[in-house]
């Protein structure tokens, strides 16, 4: 396979989407009864599970407690079977540490932490299948889980990735597109206000193009918001039926 064509002349991507189209998103909230909040999300073939405990008292060293707000503790892990090649990923490796850090930054910006001083909120995210855009899937799953736990937030946090191929910005990259090695940008957005919770990009991209890619990512994140909003409303409706209201 000599040089996979990421964007054909007719404007199709490898998997048949057009440049701005998202992969299919399916999500469910409240998948575990034991946890305070939980959610499962599928973005294309990327599947992630998020669980939220809290807010509760600080566990472990009390010294970590913050006097004015809650401590957000994020842990990321990925299953051995999540990638094509089966591989053990021990806790605390560089990648999951970094991911945990990113998630923490994202959610510290979104959760109203000042309402729960000296307490702790735990967010555990596990990736079951990785097919590109793991960060985005994790954020989206965690958002739903936090909502499920009933922790007050400023807004949804919706994340999406974007890339840049042939002068066109591609939204929601799949693994194939990521592996091709172009620039890749991850964006977590608070859609109502348009505020950016996190923006991350490793590769080099010309300044002139940044605007375009950012725009594509933001639009995709808003699309994600529409889907998540629908999921939440659906979930609330179902839950209220069960409660018998």
């Amino acid at each position, binding site marked *: 396979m*000599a040089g996979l064509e990421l964007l054909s002349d007719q404007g199709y991507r490898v998997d048949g989407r057009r440049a701005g189209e998202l*992969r299919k998103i399916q999500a469910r909230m409240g998948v575990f009864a034991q946890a305070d909040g939980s959610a499962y999300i599928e973005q294309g073939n990327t599947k992630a599970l998020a669980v939220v405990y809290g807010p509760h008292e600080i566990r472990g060293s009390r010294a970590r407690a913050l006097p004015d707000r809650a401590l957000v503790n994020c842990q990321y892990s990925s299953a051995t079977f999540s990638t094509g090649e089966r591989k053990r990923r021990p806790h605390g490796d560089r990648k999951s540490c970094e991911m945990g850090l990113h998630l923490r930054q994202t959610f510290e910006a979104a959760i109203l932490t000042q309402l729960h001083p000296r307490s702790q909120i735990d967010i555990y995210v596990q990736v079951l299948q990785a*097919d590109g855009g793991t960060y985005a899937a994790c954020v989206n799953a965690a958002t739903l889980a936090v909502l499920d736990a009933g922790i007050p937030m400023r807004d949804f946090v919706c994340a999406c990735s974007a890339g840049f191929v042939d002068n066109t910005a591609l939204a929601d990259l*799949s693994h194939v597109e990521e592996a091709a090695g172009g620039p890749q940008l991850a964006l977590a957005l608070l859609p109502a206000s348009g505020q950016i919770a996190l923006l991350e990009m490793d590769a080099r991209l010309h300044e002139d193009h940044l605007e375009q890619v950012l725009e594509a990512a933001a639009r995709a994140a808003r699309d994600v918001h529409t889907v998540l909003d629908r999921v939440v409303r659906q979930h609330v409706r179902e839950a209220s039926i069960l409660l018998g209201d």
Partner: protein
Amino acid sequence: MLQKREKVLLLRTFQGRTLRIVREHYLRPSVPCHSPLCPQPAACRNDGKLLSSDVTHYMIPDWKVVQDYLEILEFPELKGIIFMQTACQTVQHQRGRRQYNKLRNLLKDARHDCILFANEFQQYCYLPRERGESMEKWQTRSIYNAAVWYYHHCQDRMPIVMVTEDEEAIQQYGSETEGVFVISFKGILNVNKHRAQIEAFVRLQGASCKDSGLVSDILIHGMKARNRSIHGDVVVVELLPKNEWKGRTAALCENDSDDKASGDPPSEPMPTGRVVGILQKNWRDYVVTFPSKEEVQSQGKNAQKILVTPWDYRIPKIRISTQQAEALQDFRVVVRIDSWESTSVYPNGHFVRVLGRIGDLEGEIATILVENSISVVPFSEAQMCEMPVNTPGNPWKVSPEEERERKDLRETHLVFSIDPKGCEDVDDTLSVRTLANGSLELGVHIADVTHFVPPSSYIDTEARTRATTYYLADRRYDMLPSILSADLCSLLGGVDRYAVSVIWELDRTSYEIKNVWFGRTIIRSAYKLFYEAAQELLDGNVTVVEDIPELKNLDTKSRQAKLEELVWALGKLTDIARHIRAKRDRCGALELEGVEVRVQLDEKKNIHDLIPKQPLEVHETVAECMILANHWVARKIWESFPHQALLRQHPPPHQEFFSELRECAKAKGFFIDTRSNKTLADSLDNANDPNDPIVNRLLRSMATQAMSNALYFSTGSCAEEEFHHYGLALDKYTHFTSPIRRYSDIVVHRLLMAAISKDKKMEIKDNLLSNKDLEELCRHINNRNRAAQHSQKQSTELFQCMYFKDKDPENEERCISDGVIYSIRTNGVLVFIPRFGIKGAAYLRNKDGLVISCGSDSRSEWKPGSLQRFQNKITSTTTGGESVTFHLFDHVTVRISVQASRCHSDTIRLEIISNKPYMIPDTELFQQSSLLLKSDLVKEVTRSVEEAQLAQEVKVNIIQEDYQKYCQTKGRSLYTLLEEIRDLALLDVSNSYVM
């Protein structure tokens, strides 16, 4: 909205592990169709290029066609092409970036009327690949499915033609959907030899075009419609409308007669077309003759460019620019075609080399070789260096390593060979013995050529190029150097030789095969028998012992013992062979009039005799053992390598070809049942006229002609039910027993060796050919075999002509002979002359329009009149009211003469001189086998040629004597030198000579 599907891919990583990759695949309800006929342009969002609306159909090339013929699809004349995404992706993956970019540019270019249809992203066009379905099949299926969708999408208003090379696809989809045609556009131009000027046929390659239902060949009428294509080219043909279709003519006519306006009503019209393109040229070297002096002058003064006439009638005249036309007049010359301008009637060519004088034996033989593309240069030094040495000073020995690895049969088995007398290349030997457990053991031991010919060595490459040993009427050209073919690989008597053996264990009484063993062996043949001697021994005639050198020098007692052993073995062998033959006969094996000629050589390696198989039973015995070995080897290699074994198939014939045979037989009151090989064999056996044995022979040879040729093929490229060998009635067959003279056998030997090492779980040493390579090789071998057959036939005809050339047809007794009519045409009959084995045409109406008439004394005369042709007879009625009728299988007297031709080979002409059988005064002569005469004929021609040579030598001797007499300088004088050069006429020396 979008639909999500998943594709599962299994990839192999560099470490050799399998990776399972799941990819998403999104489908959408509408993708741009780029057609002006689109019913919902809004949904399709057709922006950019649209297909033009004035085309008659859309063409969808299959992935293979896009891959291989992109250059053709690039023609701006081709309009309305829809490239399917599936096809484009294969180009991208398999042909690389360059080719793919070409395709992309083509699609972008607004001048080209072609579009891409993203069928794989279309909800209704996408087909998931099924489990176990090959990539190729899936691609073809996807493209076809998309074509059907597209057709319906355009509301069935535009017919769609899918062009593919895959015959299976044509079979499968050809008639599935109305309005979507699946065709293949390739065919090979086949020019009719006898009516070169007007008729040519194109045989379609697996075409089926359902609207016309045409399965037959397409007639190309006239030179203009042939559009500069030459015999053997692969061409694209356009069918003409039905009202322009023409029929083929059934009348006999001569090549050089120019009048084409024969008044015969043409037979029923057949599909007629014209060539619109040449896909692949098949230009080769052509043998031509320069026009004679008078003709040159008629071509005009400024004859720098000269039209030369090819030896092959089917090739048009070639224009050559030369100054030496006059000097080259009497020679056969090789030319090559360079180009053919679209404005020109003739192609341009250039001179390559001189073969020899017209009418000279060597020159004519060289002509035949060139025309059949047979190249027989002596083996090169590099090739000979690979050969083992076997000289009296340094004899070849069995090496100890080989002795360890091979089964040693030297002491345990009585091995012997039966071959024609004087045969040098003995490639098969036989053995039979009783085992300790009472069973019989039959062995066929074949020379182990592959031991000496490693794959891709120089000698292997050469042998592959030659593919077979060529037997001409008076000589042969070996495939392998004589050190192998006549010495080390020849299983001669009394010497140790390597062999590959097939050994069966048979039940003692029922001869059922219980066990089989294949492997390499060492043998020492005890006797090198010839057929006649073996038959004598079988018949209990012991006097023949004197002819067997191995027994001659023994004392009486041991000779007796040895002889008894041998006779027992021969008897047993015959018994077994009869049994196997009977078994095969029950399945419907055919016995046909074969053209298998064995060549007998004398001590000086000259061909002593061309001997057809004399009907001795021992011939059949040996043949049966070989067929058995071939059959078992075929089964073995097919089992071990189901996709890359070389087998030999003989497809069942088309029933329509048998109609002539049935008609002819009916004329004699026989019924030939051609439904299966069994019924055919039985009815041929029954069709025996006690008064005329020739009838049966003719019927058999007609049956042979109706059949297709047996071919080599690779098992990977054919369905299993097509493996069948019709003639031998075996399900699998191959050639294994003559590796000295056939390359296919060498391949089979290698396959067998690989199969044996596979059984032993050993690593296969040689790299086996892949299915594709093997297919290519089979095509080459088949091609060469055909060339060998043609050259043999042509050389025989050459000798026949040379034989009759010097005879005066009016007076010579030999030129008048008995003939049998075996086919009727509108203006003549085809006659077979059993005495010389000649087949030829005899006219009943001559060039002046006179017809034949036979008076009361049955002498024939030409008179004005008319001919009337019936199913199996032809009546010639003169204006005077006399009439004479010729029936099929009538015996007539014919006069044989030779029609000399300057540019082509001479042909035999037959003239009916009486409608009564010819009575030869000397009955003894009549008794002689015709074929013995054939060998006489070869001998006589060779002798006369030798005499001519001798005469020349004498002349040289005289000159030498002159030297001595007049004390001239030794060596050649300038005079003779120039004289010789003038003879050769390669240089235009006549001027310098005058000076």
